[in-house]
């Protein structure tokens, strides 16, 4: 599904964010990308939703080299790659239903499609009861669930989560990651960048460790934050 081949990213100021990264992720796989701040986790995810293009190497998604995509095709890629952030990025003046429907509005979905897909996405994240609430009326965990529902409502093949539990309590964090693994079980490829040791150790999923922009470990069979 995702092939990262010899990727190096050097920012315009000369900072080397990634160096010769190799990574293969299969359809429906759940992968933790772990490492300290500045290790290149977010950069790796940005390459996949084509916020960045590699300085060297290739990123291939479903057989397509994303760097060679014309600008006009990037939105089509993004409809197939959902992204979730630490700060949720919800629209404060729209309620839960509208925030999720927003992702359908901007791709020109019909009213009928919205009324079919939004309830399904909200049910998946367990927020059907709160569809009329504003983000300010929700807890952090609930807000992150809304943001996951929004990322999933277009049925993307890939879901990227960049520190999804960074702003959440440990219990809530556990629930969110559990939700992400459930999503992977349904066939969506999930990459979750985190530095939450407890969660990674508890899940025993595949772990890719980055240090200074280099992959130092790929525990394919499942592992903890530090050990295979």
């Amino acid at each position, binding site marked *: 599904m995702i092939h990262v081949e010899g990727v190096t990213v050097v920012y315009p100021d000369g900072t080397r964010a990634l160096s010769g990264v190799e990574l293969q992720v299969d359809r429906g796989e759940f992968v933790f990308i772990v490492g300290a701040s500045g290790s290149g986790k977010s950069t790796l995810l940005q390459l996949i939703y084509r916020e960045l293009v590699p300085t060297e190497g290739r990123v291939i998604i479903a057989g397509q080299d994303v760097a060679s995509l014309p*600008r006009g095709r990037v*939105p*089509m890629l993004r409809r197939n790659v959902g992204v979730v952030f630490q700060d949720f*990025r919800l629209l404060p003046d729209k309620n839960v239903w509208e925030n999720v429907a*927003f992702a359908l509005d*901007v*791709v020109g*979905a019909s009213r009928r499609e919205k009324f079919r897909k939004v309830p399904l996405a909200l049910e998946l994240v367990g927020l059907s009861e709160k569809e009329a609430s504003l983000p300010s009326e929700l807890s952090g965990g609930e807000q992150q669930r809304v943001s996951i529902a929004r*990322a999933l409502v277009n049925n993307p093949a890939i879901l990227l989560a960049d520190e999804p539990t960074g702003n959440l309590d440990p219990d809530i964090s556990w629930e969110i990651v559990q939700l992400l693994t459930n999503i992977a079980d349904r066939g969506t490829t999930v990459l979750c960048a985190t530095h939450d040791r407890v969660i990674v150790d508890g899940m025993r999923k595949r772990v890719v460790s980055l240090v200074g922009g280099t992959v130092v470990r790929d525990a394919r069979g499942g592992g903890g934050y530090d050990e295979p």
Partner: protein
Amino acid sequence: MNLSMVEFLLQQAWQSIRRNGLMSLATSSNMTVALIILSSFFLVTVNLEHMADVEAHKASIRVELEDDADRAQVESRLFGDRRVASIEFKSKEEAFEDRVRRWADVLEEGDPETLAVLLGGNPLPDAIIVKPENPQDMPAIAKAAENIDGVAKVSYSQQVTDKLLTLARGIKVSGLVAAVLMGMATLLIVSTTIRLTIYARRREIRIMQLVGATNWFIRLPFILEGAFHGVMGGALATVLVLASYTYAHAYVQQHLEFLALIYDPTFTVLLGLGTLLCGVLFGVAGSWIGLRSYLRHV
């Protein structure tokens, strides 16, 4: 593009306009002022050109004949010129009567016979009044007429036409300069408003980009917002300009009837539509400038 997409775009544009209420008002007002200046200069210029045209068509060449001239021959030579529209003979007697009638107020002796005696005869010559097809040909026709046997003197007056045309040209140039300056100021203001809107909605735009909205879909609400300011400014400017022009036309007809202003329904409708269209173009161009210079940084 389906119906819900159009609804969403219009909703987005309207939200922006409402959220930036004061700025929107300022932008539309500025557009109104710019368009009033533009259409006023346009009105003055086309009317001056129209007056010059009317004057030019009134103008004629006066060909004075020698006492022993063969009138028929001069007339046929003049009429043979393709540039001549019509000729009219005016005998010395008619000319004298005209002159006397015109001077009747100042002259104590209004009777032509008495005056002729006083002047020692009628001093005026026979003349042929020539109307050209095209006023621009007057100098050439006059020159040709001078060479005809029996012609004593040729005269024509093009001064009024020339002056009006020079004035129209001057106003057209200064109007163009003013229009360009006002146009630039309007574009600057519209693009600044759009930039502020983009800034206010940067979070939303970022999310739109992330969930796969096309660039056109992100841009359209801002373009619509610019067009809205154009329509509002254009509509207000049209109403104000047409009302003032109607008033000016009525005044001129009553008090300065020698001035010929253009005024018919087609002209006023075209003027209104033109002003609206200019407004929309300004609005869309302003948005486009704002988007180009800002959206890529969001």
